[in-house]
């Protein structure tokens, strides 16, 4: 075999050649047909490595773009930079401990990460949770959903070059985490949901902060809407961009606002009701276009619905204990359980399997960000580089959840 000098297009190019330093070509021979096809560059094409450390990839997502000028021909998302093996860790901790491991998965909406495993464990134990605890779970989760969606609005604007909305959204989020800290004891990794209830009851400080906030709820969200919703630049950049059809979305397995923006009114809170959601009155927000703008608008509207839910929960909060009486060391009977909830990003599920000891035998997390991120691959080819950020932001992935 003749020895050839490595060229830019050769996937087996060595790491220490200067070309490989800037190119995203892996230093090994292609492992699959798809990889060989992807790294074979046509005329006038080049690879652009976006991430894992890039200002607009929401953490450590890495996308290798194959571009022709500014136009994207093909792309290859690379995941796993934030993998912490949470599921395996949780299998080596007892049931109470494993809740704490799930907290930093989707770090923007930690309470949902706790709620799904806790509900799965409760199903394993066949445990009934006090009603007040259920209401507190719904209350704290909906507060966090508002916070997460407002943060989404800010990040979406930031990824499209707007400086201000992200700071407005952090004003709101800061109030929110302070409020939740008064309730749960922590600002970000709450560890509030416990098997059989919640960690703490309502207290004066939380209620006064919540009352303050309710009087001006969504003020910053409205400000961001004023900045973005009608802004010609924003609308022109997002409307019609990255449209997903109904069938495509269902095939990809999208859930949450991304699916509802395609016109499918699927909301786990309505489709498979859990907790006290059947008793609450709220609308499932949908849009028909399925494009980036629709995904944005659905989330904006969901903020209002969440505020509605919070209002109802506060008015109908029952009295009673917030924890069921359960032993410290719990050993569920052998069996398996699945619990799914509606997180701000979609269906967040947890599958737990017990072998009768005090540690889960199997523990799996189904994360909506991971599923939603798949949509990048069919959407992006044909778009421009700048659209990568807009589409990625509109799918709202949290890499902590994607990589688990």
């Amino acid at each position, binding site marked *: 075999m003749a020895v050839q000098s490595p060229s830019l297009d050769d996937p087996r190019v060595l790491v220490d050649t200067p070309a490989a330093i800037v190119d995203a070509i892996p230093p090994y021979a292609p492992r699959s047909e798809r990889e060989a096809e992807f790294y074979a560059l046509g005329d006038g094409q080049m690879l652009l490595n976006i991430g894992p450390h890039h200002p607009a990839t929401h953490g450590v997502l890495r996308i290798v773009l194959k571009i022709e000028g500014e136009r994207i021909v093909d792309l290859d998302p690379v995941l796993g930079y934030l993998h912490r093996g949470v599921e395996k860790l949780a299998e080596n901790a007892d049931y109470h401990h494993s809740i704490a*491991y799930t907290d930093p998965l989707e770090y923007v909406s930690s309470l949902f990460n706790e709620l799904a495993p806790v509900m799965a464990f409760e199903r394993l134990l066949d445990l009934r949770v006090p009603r007040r605890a259920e209401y507190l779970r719904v209350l704290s989760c909906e507060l966090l959903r508002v916070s997460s969606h407002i943060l989404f609005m800010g990040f979406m604007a930031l990824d499209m070059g707007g400086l201000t909305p992200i700071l407005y959204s952090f004003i709101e989020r800061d109030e929110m985490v302070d409020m939740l*800290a008064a*309730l749960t*004891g922590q*600002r970000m990794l709450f560890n509030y949901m416990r098997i059989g209830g919640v960690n703490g009851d309502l*207290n004066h400080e939380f209620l006064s902060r919540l009352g303050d906030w309710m009087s001006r709820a969504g003020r910053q969200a409205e400000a961001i809407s004023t900045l973005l919703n*009608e802004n*010609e630049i924003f609308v022109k950049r997002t409307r019609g961009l990255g449209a997903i059809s109904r069938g495509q979305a269902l095939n990809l397995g999208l859930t949450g606002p991304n699916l509802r923006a395609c016109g499918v009114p699927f909301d786990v809170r309505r489709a498979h009701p859990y907790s006290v959601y059947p008793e609450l009155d709220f609308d499932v927000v949908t849009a028909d276009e399925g494009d980036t703008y629709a995904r944005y608008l659905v989330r904006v509207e969901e903020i209002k619905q969440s505020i509605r839910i919070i209002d109802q929960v506060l008015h109908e909060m029952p009295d009673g204990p917030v924890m069921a009486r359960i032993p410290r060391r719990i050993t569920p009977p052998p069996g398996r359980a699945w619990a799914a909830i509606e997180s701000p990003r979609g269906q967040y599920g947890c599958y737990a399997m017990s072998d009768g000891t005090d540690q889960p035998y199997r523990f799996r997390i189904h994360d909506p960000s991971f599923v939603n991120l798949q949509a990048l691959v069919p959407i992006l080819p044909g778009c421009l580089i700048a659209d990568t950020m807009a589409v990625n932001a509109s799918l709202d992935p949290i890499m902590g959840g994607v990589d688990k």
Partner: protein
Amino acid sequence: MIPVPGKGIAKGMALTLRRFFEPKVTVQYPEQAPHIAPRHRGRLELLYDEWGALKCETCFQCAMACPIECIDMGGTDTRDRFHVHWGPPEQYAERREEQALRRSGRPVPDPAFRSFDPADTSRLDALLDAEDYDPQRLLPILEGTQEIYGYIPVAAIKHISNATGIWYAEVYGTASFYEHLHLEPPTSHTIGICRCPACSLFGSGTIRTVVEQAAGVALGGTTPDGTLSLEPSDCHGENGGEPWVTFDGIRRAGVTASNAALLVRAATGAREVGGMPAGQA
């Protein structure tokens, strides 16, 4: 409605201009402390008593309970005698120390790590084998360990923990809970008894008799193995209605004739069977 081009942009510009003049939300942190909710559990806090002494008893309960092993404890105990540690393996100070030594290539003496000197564990292994490595029989194992070494070295605790699967913290907690188990080599103790008229009135004479009987030596003498000396002490008239008895120079309150023998037992260790000093059995 016909869309006016630029209307959205104009609305946004108007909003930012309005906000330019609105009050700001920044908290000037060091000057202006934010209010932290009473329920906030963001900081691990060690409490101090009113004399400024640390209330932490190094029971390791917190480190044991911490699900993600972020609590890591280490240091010397309150009497500065031996080094204890609990935490995930990466954080063991002694491991770090070993690595540092290996890297530097020269020995760095550190008295805090003397307790970790490896011990000969062949007899301990035999004992553990005899006890079937049963975590529920921890107390007999520890007592046997003390029989073997004369005390319970940290190396032995680590060995027991490794062999039986009991957490180091539990072994340590058990060993430090029982008075008759010792985590340090036997050293000499001193019991002092005041013989002033006031103390005699409150019963120091009977205590003296009991102690002398239990120790087998007279006041002013030392037991043959050197673990206990009895010496006269002075209350300076401050006995407060009780006989003045000191143990290692520290006053012990509540000593009566009925429990004075315990002091001797604490000093001479567990070398006794059925309440009788081991030396006499």
